[in-house]
């Protein structure tokens, strides 16, 4: 089922559109930098001023820019549509009588959403390294703490940041798959999932609600920047990993429980 999901996605326009979006982000950043004066330290989004020193930072900057909105939007769209889309399309009943086991089905849906998210993040990282490298060269990587890493070390940390971002999205993907088991409307479930991510970020921005901040899905989404400190500042990253894993586990189990009992009436 998982491979069938990937085969279906590979032949779909929206998959390539999202991938193109991922590739466009670092190119946009590099081109905008080439066309203007280099930004001073602290100007623009985090890491932007570092891009001119090392192309690798085009990928970091892109991650910072896509994590709050573009990536959750893509994840929410894919995850929300995953089961509800099959339901509204009518193919869900044909998959169930094939028969595809219900647990297997939910796991394959979640797995394929995550495979696409990981692929998207890798596309973004690859294009970031390529575009940044072409424009500003690659080499030893300066850390935020003032020390320097080898290029290979920097690349490993970049990939670790990508993995962290993917794990952050896994929590949202699990929520999306769960919402997707509740309704027969793909777009409805997709919108609801994106709204969850937005509301979480809004609550995170309200100081009066600071008591709940540490438990919010999105609270540590940008903590991956800490990988380019020397030594790596693990505090926020650990808490972010814990949040991501918890949300993934809870909502994936909820989706499995809900879908195993659900009537297929479309």
């Amino acid at each position, binding site marked *: 089922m998982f491979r069938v999901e990937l085969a279906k996605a590979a032949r779909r326009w929206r998959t390539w559109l999202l991938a193109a979006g991922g590739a466009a982000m670092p190119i946009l950043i590099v081109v905008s930098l080439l066309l203007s004066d280099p930004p001073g330290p602290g100007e623009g989004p985090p890491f932007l001023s570092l891009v001119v020193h090392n192309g690798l930072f085009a990928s970091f900057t892109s991650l910072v820019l896509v994590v709050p909105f573009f990536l959750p939007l893509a994840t929410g769209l894919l995850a929300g549509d995953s089961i509800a889309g099959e339901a509204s399309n009518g193919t869900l009943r*044909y998959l169930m009588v094939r028969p595809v086991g219900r647990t297997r089905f939910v796991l394959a849906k979640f797995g394929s959403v995550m495979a696409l998210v990981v692929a998207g993040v890798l596309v973004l990282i690859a294009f970031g390294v390529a575009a940044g490298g072409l424009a500003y060269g690659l080499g030893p990587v300066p850390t935020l703490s003032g020390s320097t890493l080898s290029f290979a070390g920097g690349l490993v940390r970049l990939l670790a940041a990508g993995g962290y971002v993917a794990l952050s999205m896994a929590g949202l993907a699990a929520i999306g798959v769960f919402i997707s088991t509740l309704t027969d409307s793909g777009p409805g479930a997709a919108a609801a999932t994106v709204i969850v991510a937005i509301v979480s970020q809004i609550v995170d921005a309200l100081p009066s609600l600071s008591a709940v901040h540490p438990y919010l899905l999105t609270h540590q989404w940008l903590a991956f920047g800490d990988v380019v400190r020397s030594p790596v500042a693990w505090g926020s990253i650990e808490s972010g990993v814990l949040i991501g894993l918890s949300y993934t586990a809870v909502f994936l189990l909820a989706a499995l429980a809900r879908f195993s009992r659900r009537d297929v009436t479309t």
Partner: protein
Amino acid sequence: MLYGFLGPNGAGKTTTIRMMLSLIRPSAGQAYVLDESVFSSAAAAQGALRRVGAVIEEPAFWRWLTGRKNLECFANAGGPAPDRRARVARIDEVLATVGLRSAADKRVKAYSQGMRQRLGLALALLGDPEVLVLDEPTNGLDPQGMREFRMLLRRLADAGTTIFVSSHLLGEVEAMCDHVGVLAQGKLVAQGPPSELRKRTDTVRVEVDDRLRASEVLADLTGVKVRDEQVRASSHSTMYTLALTGDATPAQVNGRLVAAGVKVGALIPEQASLEDVFLTLVEGADVPR
């Protein structure tokens, strides 16, 4: 064997089929498909479903994939590896069976309704099923398509597949089924070969002289329903059209009328069409209209 599952819209045909296929769960009771009790365990249901092919209401596909790719995706979506391989290997064969070979590499979004219907049947046939469950399969087919479809089902049935086909179209069921079940208000109200079902309700026309007396007698008879009465002024008689169900016979009606002193001028038994049977049965079940 071709089993026709007949009932007016809203009688519960699709609900019954969805329960058989374990898509929905009943509040109580059990369904047996190929001797497996569908609601006892997921494994039992899956074992049975692997031997069943189904078209449930209209067929559904991933519109951006070709017909062939759709079948391939369904084939690979579940089941043990040998089962998946066997299905993939049958794709060309089932496409040929339903006459879609030349359109197999077009995207489903470009298919006509009739082509989708045929691809739906191809999907149902993909697992070489022992039982084929078809819910309103000729919806959206033109007369020519329906005829071809019926002939195809006949061939499959003759080759040993059990076909369970639901329909609200009497003519269709009467024309092709060996066995018919009639569903009304969620209850199976009659079952049997069409010829026997037809026998169960005969229509009899009776001409009597004493209308008042006759109507009293007829009202007392069980299994007799007055469908129509026409007063004939010229001969001072009344022509009743009666529907007979169950054990009621024309001879019995005649005997009771004569015993009550009613003169019977004519007694004309008429072979009922399945439509009469159907309407009688469905009326008996008090279907709101």
